[in-house]
């Protein structure tokens, strides 16, 4: 039967691989995939959009649906983790948070709307750099825009996810943000209330926990559980 997926846009490539693999083994299953911002996906599900599985880019939208009793609570778990890194021009002498003071402009995701920005802000605060850098920060629409600003040279560097940094052409990872500075980047997954009644959805949901799935995720730079 049909399996409706609502997946955060940043998980697109990973999920595409997994569905392809799963579909090969289960020819009867057809995936209908909807990619977007986590908040938008949550509100769509709330409004009755067909969805069996929800993969969010942060926990708050998963919690939001959970509160509205739209998720199968027991199914909710972590799908993958990501890491925050700082990218910039190769050869730049930036090795740590403290070195950022040397820079002119730094892009982070908009802390309120972009999870990566929220994490970056947390890291800045914890390392005590936030006041010093306040006027140098550019708030980007999403992580992709952050990376693009760095790639185009509009900013000296950006905080992005490791998975995104791997796409970079003109920039490279200057340092990985120490994990103790920010909460772990988690991608929760869960079956929706409707999805829990869909056998194929449940089967695919289980597949997401498989070793094979983990391998795919790691290939793309995520950390799986």
């Amino acid at each position: 039967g049909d399996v409706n997926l609502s997946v955060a846009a940043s998980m697109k490539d990973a999920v595409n691989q997994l569905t392809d693999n799963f579909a090969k083994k289960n020819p009867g299953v057809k995936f209908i995939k909807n990619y977007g911002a986590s908040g938008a996906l949550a509100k769509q599900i709330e409004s009755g959009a067909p969805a069996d599985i929800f993969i969010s880019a942060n926990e708050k939208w998963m919690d939001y649906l959970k509160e509205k009793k739209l998720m199968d609570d027991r199914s909710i778990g972590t799908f993958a983790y990501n890491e925050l890194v700082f990218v910039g021009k190769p050869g730049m002498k930036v090795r740590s948070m403290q070195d950022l003071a040397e820079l002119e402009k730094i892009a982070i995701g908009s802390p309120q709307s972009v999870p990566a920005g929220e994490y970056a802000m947390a890291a800045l605060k914890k390392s005590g750099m936030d006041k010093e850098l306040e006027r140098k920060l550019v708030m980007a629409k999403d992580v992709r825009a952050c990376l693009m600003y760095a790639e185009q040279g509009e900013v000296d560097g950006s905080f992005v996810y490791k998975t995104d940094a791997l796409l970079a052409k003109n920039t490279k990872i200057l340092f990985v943000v120490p994990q103790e500075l920010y909460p772990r980047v988690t991608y929760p997954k869960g079956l929706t209330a409707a999805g829990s009644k869909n056998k194929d959805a449940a089967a695919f949901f289980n597949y997401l926990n498989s070793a094979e799935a983990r391998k795919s995720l790691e290939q793309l730079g995520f950390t799986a559980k």
Partner: protein
Amino acid sequence: MNMPSFTSADYSAIFLSMKVASTATLLSLPVGFALAWLMTYKQFRGKVILDVLISLPLTLPPVVIGYLLLLLLGRNGWVGKYLLQPLDIRLIFTWKAAVIATAVVGFPLLVRAIRIGMESIDERLLQAARTLGAGTFDNIITVILPLSFRGILAGSALMFARGLGEFGATIIVAGNIPGVTQTIPLAIYEYTSSPSGDVMALALCMVSISLSVIILLFHEFLSRRLVKAD
């Protein structure tokens, strides 16, 4: 650089974009014309409110419109709950939702263009038609319609072009489902959020541009015929 080849999802995005933009435009035309007529020729209470309602989608960011439509048409919305569900119609996440989103976003452009066209019709022609026995409706069809044709044409072209570029509202109400509700802008969005998608995104941009060139050429052609028709 090699021209990248489109996937079948891309082709269906192109096809869907055309289908959505033209359906939205065609469906809006009669309503838009009627409203433009009302706004141009009639004085009534609440005219300003109607005007504001029509123009609203212009003022609000498309994403917000998407959310508002979702609230309205969704499971718990007025329309969704009391009209669509009893009739067993599902709109959200279908191409019809994309049509509605596109229509709402482009509608103010259509109405405004038709209004400008109507406002410049010589009133004496309408008077002449009336003395010749043409009632209100007859007058609308045989005089106002043909004489505001330039405005209608321009409005349709504007609306169609806007429809090709509509992203924010569509992705919310119709979702971004390849092959089902993914229009060109949504496909572009997807390409730009994955590695090495830039080339494909650009290629889709070119398609969008070509489509609008065709529409503009067609519009120019019709306008010229209008002028030539002595």
